[in-house]
């Protein structure tokens, strides 16, 4: 019962604190919106390529590639100058037949890759075109021969069948997307992890600060001078911040789905369950660390050490190619499991029952940290 009253009081205090509320509910949406803008922009990079002595067919094929523009230069010196002055992103020079030298500005890996891919595509397209022309010539020759034969020996022509060249039907590819649509990009991939991260970050920070304040203002001592159990205080905090995390999740989900067009394949309830669990872990973590801090500023010092690294190791960047010990770091971070579970739910529609491992590990984190907290409060009261 006391736990509920403590939860009530914590929520009451938070509601009065308008700025913190805004931070918790508006900041995540704002940051996600900005990230969407940034990551959607980067997919439409375009490059300009200077060519020197390149065959006209290849040039027009390259120009036809999307997001690639071609300017022809008379001399290599002029092309290199354009590269130096950042007018073009790469220079393609044909030295011998079928021998090209490409110089990249290489200040932006995306652009370099676009030139490489574009040039390859252009060469392939050019090859196919040459092939087609040859085929066309061949079939023309065949039909000319057939006409000649018909004139010379009409009876023989009766048994001669010239295959009619059907107009080659353009290859058509129909795209179907398991998740999202053609605009689905990097932003969509990081949304599930970001959602978890925001919950983790804000609950960690605000709850840690709140308990720290209780300690420094003496209200914790006063609370412990009543018959309240240590566990009830921890429970009260869990309840209040758990509710807050749920509200935060709903707001983030509504905004990402409503305004940013992110598709959630799984159920909203499953997303909420994982976020609630993560919030409790973050809370227990925040309370634990607040006992190690003497001031709000010291609490802030944990952010670069313990919070930010979680983002990098929790699946925003693929860790498969990294050294084994780097991957091992991710196994001890709660956000890894929450991020994985959220990705499964949002992108693959996985049901909670299939995420036993992630949920189990999060629960384990929760139990261990909570026990440490209840135990740690003995420092302020012996019973």
């Amino acid at each position, binding site marked *: 019962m006391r736990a509920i009253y403590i939860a009530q*009081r914590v929520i009451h205090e938070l509601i009065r604190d308008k700025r913190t509320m805004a931070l918790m509910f508006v900041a995540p949406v704002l940051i996600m919106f900005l990230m969407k803008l940034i990551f959607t922009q980067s997919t439409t990079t375009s490059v300009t390529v200077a060519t020197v002595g390149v065959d006209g067919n290849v040039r027009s094929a390259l120009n036809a590639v999307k997001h690639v523009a071609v300017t022809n230069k008379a001399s290599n010196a002029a092309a290199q100058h354009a590269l130096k002055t950042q007018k073009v992103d790469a220079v393609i020079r044909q030295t011998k037949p079928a021998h090209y030298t490409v110089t990249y500005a290489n200040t932006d890996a995306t652009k370099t890759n676009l030139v490489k891919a574009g040039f390859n595509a252009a060469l392939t397209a050019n090859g196919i075109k040459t092939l087609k022309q040859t085929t066309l010539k061949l079939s023309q020759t065949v039909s000319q021969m057939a006409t000649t034969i018909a004139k010379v020996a009409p009876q023989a022509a009766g048994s001669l069948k010239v295959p009619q060249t059907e107009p080659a039907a353009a290859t058509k590819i129909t795209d179907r997307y398991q998740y999202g649509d053609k605009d689905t990009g990097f932003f969509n991939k990081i949304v599930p992890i970001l959602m978890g991260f925001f919950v983790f970050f804000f609950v960690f920070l605000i709850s840690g600060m709140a308990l720290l304040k209780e300690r420094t*203002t003496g209200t914790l001592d006063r609370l412990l001078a*009543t018959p309240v159990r240590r566990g009830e205080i921890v429970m009260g905090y869990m309840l209040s911040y758990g509710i807050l995390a749920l509200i935060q999740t709903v707001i983030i989900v509504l905004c990402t789905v409503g305004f940013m067009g992110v598709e959630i394949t799984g159920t909203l309830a499953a997303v909420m369950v994982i976020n609630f669990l993560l919030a409790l872990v973050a809370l227990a973590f925040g309370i634990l660390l607040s006992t190690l801090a003497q001031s709000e500023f010291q609490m802030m010092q944990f952010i670069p050490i313990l919070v930010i690294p979680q983002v990098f190791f929790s699946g925003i960047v693929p860790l498969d190619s990294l050294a084994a010990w780097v991957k091992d770091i991710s196994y001890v971070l709660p956000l890894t499991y929450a991020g994985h579970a959220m990705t499964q739910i949002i992108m693959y529609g996985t049901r909670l029952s299939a995420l036993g491992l992630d949920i189990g590990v999060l629960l384990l984190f929760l139990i261990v940290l909570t026990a440490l907290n209840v135990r740690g409060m003995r420092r302020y009261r012996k019973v």
Partner: protein
Amino acid sequence: MTEPVIDLKHLQKTFGQQTVLADVTLQIAPGEILGLIGPSGAGKSTVIKTALGMEVADGGEARVLQTHMPNRQLLGRIGYMAQEDALYEALTGAENLRFFGRMKGVKKAVLAADIAHVAAVVDLTADLEKPVAGYSGGMKRRLSLAIALLGAPELLILDEPTVGIDPALRRKIWSELHQLRDEGRGILITTHVMDEAELVDHVALLLGGKLMAYGTPAALETQYAVDSIEAVFLKAEGVA
């Protein structure tokens, strides 16, 4: 002879190298106000915190209301007011009172009446709906005292309750304390205001980790051959 409400025997407490309490033995009977005085840093607050079990004693025993301390359940029968105000500034006075009342386990049925009563004692009835952040220093101190009075505790432990409170209100608070004493409650109070020390039943002077003097105000004045507790204090400390 009734059992003492506070019974401290040979209490010892050290913080690192510093011995704060060397050997403190002290008793308070029901219906008695004991004034604990002593210079700043003498260890008055430490005596209180050890008695409540918030600090663990290195030696000796603390029994409160016939129970060995620390004991969680017992805390509901004690009204404790710390030296620092320790209030939730974002909440109003009434919300603070309600919250601590619930934590103490005051029955729902009597909580509202109890809050009204203690607020009247400290003259805060008109300001109960204001957030504590807007209170003056004295108002916070009074609210803090009101919280300690909640739930009609059998024992009151007040660490400098009247700091920053004006003389008229201080008189009112003392008359309330006397009334509580007459109802049979025990009260332990620390103070630096020496004319308040004249109002208590027994004075204990804490110096160098020990009780240097103990007795009724009148008896101490005779013992030290002076005419006020203030003079006793100065003489014992060797200033006068």
